[in-house]
């Protein structure tokens, strides 16, 4: 799993790539938290466009980041979710703590060819 962070003003965008499970989540978490604590973003976007698999570790990653970011009054947005990742996040009610949006159709097809 690869994690890349970009900033624009007070907005932090995190691009996640690969399979998000219990094995891979800690590295992503540490990278995001370390950066966020130094940067204090006003808004954070987690971009799941490159995520090819996700289980409940993805839920844990989002809930944990929310708990940290809310301390800086930072808002959270999750973008480019595959149909499957969206289903997992809705199951956990994450739409109550973050704005969730799915990948557009072209992106969704890319997900399918990755499988």
């Amino acid at each position, binding site marked *: 799993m690869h994690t890349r962070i970009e900033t624009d003003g007070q907005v932090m965008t995190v691009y996640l790539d690969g399979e998000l*499970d219990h094995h891979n989540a800690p590295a992503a978490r540490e990278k995001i938290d370390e950066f966020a604590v130094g940067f204090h973003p006003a808004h954070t976007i987690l971009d799941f466009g490159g995520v090819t698999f996700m289980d409940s570790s993805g839920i844990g990653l989002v809930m944990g980041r929310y708990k940290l970011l809310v301390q800086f009054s930072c808002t959270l947005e999750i973008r480019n979710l595959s149909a499957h990742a969206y289903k997992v996040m809705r*199951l956990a009610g994450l739409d109550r703590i973050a704005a969730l949006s799915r990948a557009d159709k072209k992106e969704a097809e890319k997900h399918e060819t990755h499988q």
Partner: protein
Amino acid sequence: MRPINEMRLQIESRSVNEAYARVAVAAFAAALDPTLEEVNDIKTAVSEAVTNCIVHAYPNEVGKIYIQVRLFERGRMEIRIRDRGCGIADVKKAREPLFTTRGGDRSGLGFSVMESFCDKVRVRSAVGKGTTVTLVKLLHGREASLEP
């Protein structure tokens, strides 16, 4: 009812094996021609069960995880994931959404995810002896729907 095909897999409870376990089970199910959504459901449920073995059953040691997959007529799939770890004292409580014995980023939703992505989830556990989770998934993929 006799299975039409069966496989067994034994892995060590190392987190690096989570990906291997879910991919191996999904690949074996390919004979039933599942849809992409069904493949994702299987991979996710297996990932949850195997993660539970690693995190909870063998918290301070590396133990063995035994996976058995049986395929039946009409797209019925049974996945049994067994460990010889510490066992669960209160299975009912463990299955409750958001319940977790661990802090950090554990969501406590592992069993909820298994339940929503499978047709049936059975848990048998004995403290000090281990846990067996059985996942039943009915695949309605192309080939399954052509069965008489």
